[in-house]
């Protein structure tokens, strides 16, 4: 099963679609979670997920905004999507009936 950060990374990459690369994924994770995401965590996790076959990477185009340096583009594989869905389903199942979920939907005891 995926780890929490792995799930966040895959979800951010899927949301960004064709525009998924290091800096964009990092911004997406930081904006969503409100936590800082280090380069070390980001790139080592990308490598780990790629080794597991959950995503694929390739070197993309360079832009002047990046000082002419290439992006590392990320694409989530179908196995990655399946793994992320499995994580989400597990979190949803295990969260059923717990107080904060009940409070959220207005059924506090």
């Amino acid at each position, binding site marked *: 099963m995926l780890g929490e950060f792995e799930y966040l990374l895959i979800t951010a990459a899927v949301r960004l679609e064709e525009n998924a*690369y*290091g*800096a964009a994924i*990092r*911004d997406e994770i930081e904006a969503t979670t409100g936590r800082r995401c*280090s*380069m*070390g*965590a980001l*790139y*080592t996790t990308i490598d780990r997920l790629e080794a597991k076959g959950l995503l694929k990477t390739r*070197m993309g185009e*360079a*832009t002047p*905004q*990046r*000082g002419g*340096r*290439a*992006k*590392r583009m990320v694409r989530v594989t179908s196995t990655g999507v399946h793994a992320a869905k499995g994580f989400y389903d597990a979190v949803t199942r295990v969260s059923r009936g717990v107080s904060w979920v009940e409070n959220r939907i207005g059924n506090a005891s």
Partner: protein
Amino acid sequence: MNGIAWVLVELASRLLEHDEREAVLGDLLESNESAGQGLLDVFGLVLRRQAGLWRDFRPWLAGFVVALPSSYLLTYVSVSVSCTYQRLVNHRVYDKWWPTGQEGFSLLLCHIFLLIAWSWASGYVVGSLSRRTVWVSAALSLFPSVIFCFPAYPLESLSKLCLFLFLLPAILGARQGMRNTRISLRSASLLALTVTVLMISAWSSKALWISNWALILPAWYLVATAWPSGQKGRTASPMHLA
């Protein structure tokens, strides 16, 4: 990010692989990170990468099983060869730094060949086992010379550079190992057999320390890896990428 800070970040990023360096530096520029944060990010990634390499057994094998003990033995062989040369050519006698003190020119040549072959083979093994942690193995191979030999170096009239005669062939071997240069089975066997025959010859003349027999292992390791079934494993194995 100002100029000097960016230079520091670029220097630190040289510890990363080329593609990763490109992506990380581009990301930092795009995110307009501060210099300090950029440095922390790059060092953090470098540390994670290096730590990841040491999860494998090969860097440990290369550094602590091959580089460290081999360099310890080769340091003594280097001094021994220098002492024999000084005795034969300049008639200077240094006590205790060669097996018998009776070696002639033929045994001196034999020792010189063995020193080069042992050093080259050890360097090759270290380089091929773990090229991305080779700097640790390099530091470990200087450790015996610097820590043990310099403070207790008893031969004032002999240059301390004599401790490092093994370094050049070892560096050449490590470079070839890091480039994953393929050694044919024939060449590897020839080297290993020559080394073995010369060691037996020197041993029978009582001109070899017993501990030097450990130095035969890298030469035979080359034979094992050059074996046809071993070559298939080499191309498929990630060991040369570690």
